[in-house]
């Protein structure tokens, strides 16, 4: 489910930009200043990726592959619900209290690593946010796709233009997440990547079995050496959406 997202979301963003660039005269129809936009996507970017004058194909890919994204998201949501795995994406108060520690450590301000279960507080928050973004991407997508037949849904998003605005910025959010996510996974190293793929993690000699943040006592456990060490390396192991 996590891995299906990568190719599907790539196709969605690529075809979505083709749709966005169909309207060359008014590319800021969503109400964003032109200055900002041109900095995000310079002309060479559009030319290289063949984003212009490809509206028909963009729509064909977007409205067909969109179903894969929506159905994959639905299956994943059902899965999280059935297994209780959703708890890993909803930070508790205790998790939220660890966030400053994670950030201080992350930006090399503080040496001591924060408590790390499966995910730390920042991971829980950002992975949880990405799941929500997926939900909003699909719903705002439908609101744009059928604004007359699904007028009540479009109204929930504040109307057609507002739904486009949300859809657009959720996409930018995905791109930003993707870059940070890749960077962090790369930094976390090969062992972590192996664990993403297999679901198991190779432990060093003498290290203990990692716990889950869901268990309160793990959060409370301070400085268990192996858990703490691993804070550096296990940036992300599980599925997002």
């Amino acid at each position, binding site marked *: 489910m996590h891995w299906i997202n990568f190719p599907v979301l790539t196709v969605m963003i690529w075809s979505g930009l083709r749709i966005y660039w169909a309207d060359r005269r*008014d590319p800021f129809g969503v109400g964003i200043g032109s200055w900002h936009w041109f900095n995000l996507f310079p002309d060479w970017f559009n030319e290289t990726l063949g984003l212009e004058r490809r509206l028909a194909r963009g729509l*064909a890919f977007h*409205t067909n592959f969109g179903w894969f994204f929506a159905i994959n998201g639905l299956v994943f949501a059902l899965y999280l619900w059935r297994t209780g795995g959703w708890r890993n994406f909803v930070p508790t108060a205790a998790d939220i209290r660890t966030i400053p520690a994670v950030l201080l450590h992350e930006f090399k301000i503080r040496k001591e690593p924060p408590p790390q279960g499966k995910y730390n507080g920042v991971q829980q928050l950002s992975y949880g946010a990405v799941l929500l973004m997926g939900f909003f991407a699909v719903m705002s997508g439908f609101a744009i796709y059928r604004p007359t037949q699904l007028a009540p849904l479009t109204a929930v998003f504040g109307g057609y233009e507002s739904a486009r605005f949300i859809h657009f910025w959720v996409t930018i959010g995905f791109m930003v997440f993707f870059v940070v996510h890749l960077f962090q996974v790369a930094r976390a190293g090969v062992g972590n990547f192996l664990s993403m793929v*297999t679901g198991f*993690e190779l432990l060093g000699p003498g290290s203990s079995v990692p716990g889950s943040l869901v268990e309160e006592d793990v959060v409370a456990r301070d400085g268990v050496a192996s858990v703490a060490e691993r804070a550096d390396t296990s940036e992300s192991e599980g599925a997002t959406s």
Partner: protein
Amino acid sequence: MNGGDEMDDDGVGVDGAAVDGAGVDGAAVDGGEIDGAAADQDVVVDSVSVRSGGHRETADLNGRTLPEDQYRSLSRRSFLTGGTAVVGAAVGWRWLHQRPADDRIPDVLRAGHQANERIWRTIFRDGAEAPTFDFAQSSAMRVNGRHGIESPLDVETWELRVVGPEGELLGTYDLDDLRTLPQTEMTVEHKCIEGWSHIVTWGGVVFSDFVERFHPDQADAPFVGLSTPDNEYRVGLERDAMMHSQTMLTLDLQREPLTEDHGAPVRLTTPLKYGIKQIKRIGTIEFATEQPEDDFWTTRGYDWYAAL
């Protein structure tokens, strides 16, 4: 998936997700296998750990452990599956791009458009209406596209021809005929397939009023085809959209008669379809039993249904 009860207890379904991640790629079967392997290991590991002092172990977040050699083979299997999936995706992507074109897009994507059309026509709600706005919120719209209206309009010779399913002429009408029918005004958000939208006020005759007045026997025609007098720009719409209360033969824009650029003397407007279906300068209306051919933008790669 097996082991579900355990997961509920410790809430660590997510590692299961990671397992599935590996499976993706290969689907649930793989995930099941791995889970099964893990479950077995709980037993095996005990004995292994007794005899192997120097061996490294692996653990998942459930605390389930695997001896290293088994972990290695699990990794190998996962990566083989993953690699196969990557190759599969690449081959699929290439295949998709090499499919023969059906009206300018790969035939499978065209089939996808048609499948989507069937879904949305099945759940079509006749009562669903596009939101309407106050006249004060509307303004003159930009001109976008002159296909089919490039030659100057000759108001003297223009007439609206209505044709039946066999191509037989059912009647001709002029502007006065349309003006004598009940006039309706509608302020809606006009949406272009390019993405922009504009709140605009249309005035004219609701198409179902026109049919009821002049051609009630055609009210059940499954399709309606419309074309410009020069026959260059053609569109087809299904009955549900044509007979909807917001679909109009439009004569006015912002309470002024249409200009030539906007489709004088009469154009189609409907918030159920993108602008590409809202043909300007209608010359012929044809009631049809089959979906009309040569729809201008469909032949250029767009979805025939083009609904909103």
